[in-house]
């Protein structure tokens, strides 16, 4: 006659245990990536729909440019195009020569990479690190762990993949770091994010290390994750040690963190075990 339903506190207890189990499983194992990918695929249409008004606005404002501007930019682009072709010829000659010399020395070729272009849909609201969502995912062959860059430099790496979107953790997030090499003298250091878009640091630097303001840091390729030679940061200033045995250096990331909408996801040239 009377329907007794389970008490609120009991139900809360059950959900609490379920939530804690989810947390522990997701923190320690990768068993839940299927669930995450499925829910992420369900969210994708909502995300795409929400970013479309901004796209329309861009299209409309792009339509309203004057003839003069078009002509000017056409001229500039033609010049730039010619310059790039000249550079490209130079570069391919150099690359051929380099390959030849490497073959002569019996060196292994560096891990090459194939770029997949992608567009940033939005920044993700994560209080613990800086992430962006891309409009390409598992269907385009993207896998977690692949590096991401823009035209200026390294941006970060893919951390989660669902069929139609991928989540990229930025290199400027707090716990992220990348092995780099000073272009001037080949000094190898590790540059780490600070949670700011415009500042990174080199921690635990040798007191007498030869690192000067203006030095360019490129990836060294030592971790087998980031291919060698991607520009990462420019050294702003170095700090002499006061109470610690280590110096540190402040750097500015070269990639336009939080500025551009188009990025390249790099397919590593080797297969991860």
């Amino acid at each position: 006659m009377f329907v007794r339903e389970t008490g609120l506190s009991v139900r809360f207890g059950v959900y609490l245990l379920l939530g804690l189990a989810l947390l522990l499983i997701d923190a320690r194992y990768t068993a839940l990536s299927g669930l995450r990918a499925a829910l992420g695929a369900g969210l994708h249409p909502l995300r795409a729909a929400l970013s479309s008004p901004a796209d329309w606005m861009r299209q409309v404002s792009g339509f309203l440019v004057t003839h003069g501007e078009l002509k000017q930019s056409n001229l500039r682009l033609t010049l730039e195009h010619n310059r790039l072709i000249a550079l490209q010829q130079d570069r391919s000659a150099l690359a051929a020569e380099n390959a030849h010399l490497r073959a002569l020395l019996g060196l292994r070729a560096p891990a090459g990479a194939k770029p997949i272009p992608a567009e940033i849909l939005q920044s993700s609201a994560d209080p613990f690190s800086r992430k962006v969502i891309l409009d390409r995912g598992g269907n385009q062959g993207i896998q977690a762990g692949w590096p991401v860059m823009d035209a200026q430099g390294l941006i970060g790496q893919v951390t989660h993949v669902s069929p139609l979107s991928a989540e990229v953790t930025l290199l400027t997030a707090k716990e992220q770091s990348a092995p780099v090499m000073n272009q001037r003298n080949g000094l190898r250091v590790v540059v780490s994010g600070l949670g700011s878009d415009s500042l990174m640091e080199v921690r635990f630097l040798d007191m007498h290390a030869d690192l000067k303001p203006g030095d360019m840091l490129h990836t060294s390729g030592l971790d087998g994750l980031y291919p060698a030679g991607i520009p990462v940061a420019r050294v702003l200033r170095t700090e002499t040690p006061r109470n610690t045995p280590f110096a540190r250096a402040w750097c500015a990331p070269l990639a336009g963190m939080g500025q551009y909408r188009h990025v390249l996801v790099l397919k590593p040239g080797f297969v991860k075990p």
Partner: protein
Amino acid sequence: MNGLSDKPLLPQGAELAAPPTLLKVYGSLTLALAMNLLPWPDDALWLAPDFTLMLLLYWHIHAPRYAGLGTAFFFGLITDVARGVLLGLDTLAYCTAAFFVLSLRLRLVNFDAPRQALQIAPILLTKEALVLGLGLALGRAADADWRWLASGVVAALLWAPLAMLVDRLTGRPSYPIQNRL
């Protein structure tokens, strides 16, 4: 004269004409989720209130039959995926907030939205603190951005306007039933 005898057994007037329905509850929750997913500017992301949680709590108060702990669990899971944090982080926080509101429900329905805001504010703040604390304790994150607590304050400030807006849109009378008697 006690208020109990004056209170009608069935809802009267506008509330009877426009009761909360499944469509209203889940439609508004989906809209709130979309608000959270809007491309907010990066610098203002930590100020953006959690609309999903606010709508959830609203429906916990006014339509507990349609929005119970299970609903909170489900939307928490979706929020986890959308924000890209550990699965279960927002889920636990949403369930905890839902538990408090559902236990206090009989008291909360008797207040109008601004007075509710005072009692909901600690719950909204607790949720943000819970997400940050749990993430620190369990996650691989070295440090949390404590500015995100501010979104709880913004949510508390927005509670009254949001509740009144949803009242207006769903046709629920804004004032508590007892004030009318």
